[in-house]
Structures are given as C-alpha cells and as structure tokens.
C-alpha cells in the first residue's frame, strides 16, 4: 500500500503494537484524530472479508478510553440478518464509515496504564466474532 499518512504521532507503545500487528495503518486528522487500519480481517460470514477499521482517539486518550469502531466499506451479514447498533455513519477523509456502537462495560472498564489501541483492537475482533454467537 502506497503513501501511508502519518498526520500525528502516536504514543510509543501504540506505534510498537501497530507495527507488530502487521497491517498497514495511518494516522489522520479529520476533525478528530483517527487511526485507520487497512486490510482488517472480519469473517467470511460478512460481505467484506477485509475492511478499513477506524478508531477515534478521544481527547485525553490514553487517560480517556477508546470507544466504538468505524468500518469502511459497511459490513452486512451474508445471511441477511441485521447487525444491531450499526445504523450511524461517520465521514472520515471523504469516505462514509459505518459506526459500530459498542462500549466498555462495568465488567470490562478502560484501565489507565493498561488499555491502549492494542487492547481496543482485541475488543474489535471480539465484537466481529461475537455477532455470530447469539
């Protein structure tokens, strides 16, 4: 992939994680600060096996927790069943991303000094997989 944008710096541990994770990633500023992860694997039961995942870095991150995830192109299940809480959209760098409204719970709170982009990505992977567990 050509010309990966690095429009702002990430904290060191996040850079290390993303480089280890091995997918092409970008940091862009479009209103908010966004991390884009390309070729993000979903599951064969979605319409796109690979998408771009976007994470908004909240002001105050890493002391303010990360929340939700945004996918482009939009995901639907190949069996036609609806995916709840994905009706919202977010325009990022002129592309319309699908917002997956998923949040930390009291059982799984954001822990400062422990949680970061890496642990958020583990959560995203879980959200994608959990869709087929109900």
């Amino acid at each position, binding site marked *: 992939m050509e010309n990966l944008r690095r429009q702002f710096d990430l904290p060191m541990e996040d850079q290390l994680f993303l480089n280890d994770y091995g997918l092409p990633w970008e940091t862009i500023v479009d*209103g908010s600060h966004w991390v884009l992860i390309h070729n993000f694997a979903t599951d064969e039961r979605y319409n796109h096996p690979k998408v771009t995942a976007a994470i908004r870095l909240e002001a105050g991150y890493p*002391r303010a927790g990360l929340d939700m995830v945004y996918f482009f192109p939009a995901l639907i299940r190949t069996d036609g069943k609806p995916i709840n809480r994905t009706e919202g959209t*977010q325009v990022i760098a002129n592309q319309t991303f699908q917002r997956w409204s998923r949040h930390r719970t009291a059982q799984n709170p954001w822990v400062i000094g422990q949680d970061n982009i890496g642990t958020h990505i583990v959560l995203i992977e879980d959200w994608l997989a959990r869709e087929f567990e109900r």
Partner: protein
Amino acid sequence: MNNPFTTLSLTGDQHALLMGHLYPGDNKEAVAILLCNRRAGDRRHRLVAREIHLIPHEQCSVRTETQVTWPTDLLEPILERATKYALSVIKIHSHPRGYPRFSQTDDIADRDLLPLVRGWVEADVIHGSVVVLPNGEMFGRVLGSENDFIKLDLINVVGDDLYFWYSDANTSEMPSFVASHAQLFGAGTTERLRRLSIAVIGCSGTGSPVIEQLIRLGVGELIIVDDDRMDDRNVNRILNSTILDANEHSLKALMLALAIDKIGLGTRVIPICRNLWDPEVIRQVAQCDIVFGCMDTVDGRFLLNTLATYYTISYFDLGVRLDAIPNGPQKGKIREVCGTVHYLQPGRSSLISRGLFTMEQVAHARLRHTDPAAHEQQVKDGYIKGIQEYRPAVISVNMYIAALAINDFLARLHPYREAPNCKIASIEASLSSLELFPEPEGTPCTVLQQYVGKGDVTPLLDIVELS
C-alpha cells in the same frame, strides 16, 4: 559555551521517600539513584524525577559519617532503564554531619562514576550528583561535556510546602518596591519570588487579578497565555483593559503584557496569544516553576493538570461559581456566590479525583472543539448532554478568589496560617454564607498518578492532538 539554567524538581512525596532512606537514623551516609526525564527548554533545562532507586544499606560495603561505598553492579539494571527511556541518572547521597559542599571524596567518586554513566546511557542527556542535608536541603551538579562539574542552578520540591534551593542564594539585590511585603515575609521569600517563573493560563476574569498581584509581589518571570481577544463584554472585569482595547479587539495576553511593561517593576513577561492546546504553548509553560489555571473549560483544566503532573509543577486552579435562577417568578434571585482554589501536587489527588469533572466530560468537551459535526451527532444520538453556554461574572468575586489563590501560594512559600499546609488541598469561599471551607487531600488520582515526572515525550503528554 553558555550552560542553560539547569534545575531538578521533585514532588514532596519523592523528597520524603529519599529523606526516609538517606537518613535512617544511624548517622551514616546512604545513597540512592534518581532517574529523571526533563523539559529541554530554551529558557531552562528542567530535570524532573521519574524513578527513585534506593541502594539497600546492607549492600553498602562502607557506610560511615563521611563516606558510602556500594557495588556498582547494582547500577546495571538501573542504567538499562535509563538507556531504554533516555533518562538522566542522578546519584544522590546524604551528608549526616551537614557538610554543605561536595567533599574531596565526592569529587573522586563522581569523576569515576558520571563519565561511566554517560558512556553507558547512549542518549545525549545530562547526568549528575546531588547531596541531601539533614534538614532536607539539596544541592547538586551535573557533568559537563569536558568532564567538568556544572552546578545545578536550582533544586525545588513541589509539596504541601514549596522549597527552592538556588546554587547562588542571597546574591541578588532587592528593589525598593518590595520593602513593604519583605517586612512580613522576609528577605528570603522576597528573593525567591524574584527568581520564580510562573505561568498564568487565562488572562480574563480571575487571570488578570492573579497577574496583577504577582507582578506587584515582584515575581521574576511571567508567562501569560490566552488566545482570546477583548470585547465590550469583558472590559467590566479585566484589569488594565480599556474600552479602546475592546473596540480594537486587542489580544488579551498582549494587552496585559504592555500594561506589565508600563508598570515597570522588572517582571520579564512572555505573552503567548495561543491556546493551551498547542504544542509550543505546552513547551513554554512546562519550563515554569508554578502554574495558575484561570480557565473555566473542562478540557483546559484537564490539560493543565496533566502538564503539571508530567513536569512536576505546582498547580493552583481557580474556579468561580455564580448561580442565579434563570426563569420564573424568582428570576435573578441569587442562589450561589462562591469560588474554590485547588492546590494540586503531582502524584496526589487531581481535579478529576476531586470530582470537578470526568474523563468522559473531557473527551466530549474536546470533541465539540475539534469535530463539532461528530459532537452534534452524538448529542442527537443521546451520548452527550447538551452544554449550557451562559456564564455570569462579577469582578469583585473574581478578585476575591484570585486573592485567595495568591495567599494560598504565599502560605506554601512562607507558611503563616494556623493550620499546617498539609491539611489544606483546596479552599472554598462562599460569599453567600460568608464562610471559608478548607479541605484536605483525598486519595491519589488513578488517572494521573502514574505519569509523575514523565517529562518530554512524543507526542507531548502522550496526547495525540499535541503532535
């Protein structure tokens, strides 16, 4: 080559930990290693204590009243951490007899140790040596590029009480205008005021009275920060402003800097007409000894609390609360007239842990600023409660709270209150009930305590917006 003004800052808790180790009560020398990050600034090079490694007494082969010897293999894991995080290494030991200078033994030991440390730690950072005297006072030196020793110009402790130990104390001449307050606070305090570098963030309602008091107290250097302009809505409460400034929409910080110069008491003023959420502003403010926060924004106060933690700086936060019934038959009836001064020490409780705001509110406030469309969408979707915009302001209340903050600052520089400073972390003043409510420290802030002395990192304060 001119050496920059070089300082070392610790928190009161770090200083207490060192005192407990270096003065165990057996009247023998003891040693510890400080690992420091820094603010490598244009005005100052501020070392900030990040880690303290205590060398166990039982592992010292020699401990006497005048000497301590310890195996240097204990240094190896410490130096590995210094290398990994580009930290400065400061050897710190005691002089139980109170000898107020480096001894010949110290000179020999430091000439052996410090070049070795510099060779090991690959980063181009300075390393040094510090002595702690029985009364807690500290002095130090760093290794120069020619393997010479250069005095640490200042060591300060940010605790309940504020300590500043200069390498060249009592040498400057005091101007006559400070004679009146020197009578109360003494020459030592007045001299320290003259040497202090203080930042005031926000030059409006509470900021301008704070600035006015600091310059007339003879503060040496002021960094004043505000990106806002005058308009006719705020001439009613900004000191040193005129209707001409409002008509011209003068920059507040620049207007006040001109006034300070005109007053002519010798304060060096650096006006910064930018928002605190600007990396260059962070870099300038982080070179100061003390910050006064005179902002009413949640994200501004969060940022200043974080900056003060990363860079080991005393933070006085001013807040005013005026509340009147907005509608109905009792419209305008005054419900509340009060304000609070919070004194915040790095590693202790914060504005967050004291319940002034939550991290969620910080994120929402910032989202509204950086991505208003997304913020509006989230308000619509029910994630964020809409924000009330109207804020009343009255000059006499602002000046009252500003005076409360300055008098709290003076009390920590030169204690004069009946209650010890360790019992007071905030003071609320209610003019509605004519009462003062001091509050002690609460539990340390879990959001910020792990970042004490983290200093210069990329991005600044680990906040991506400050790239």
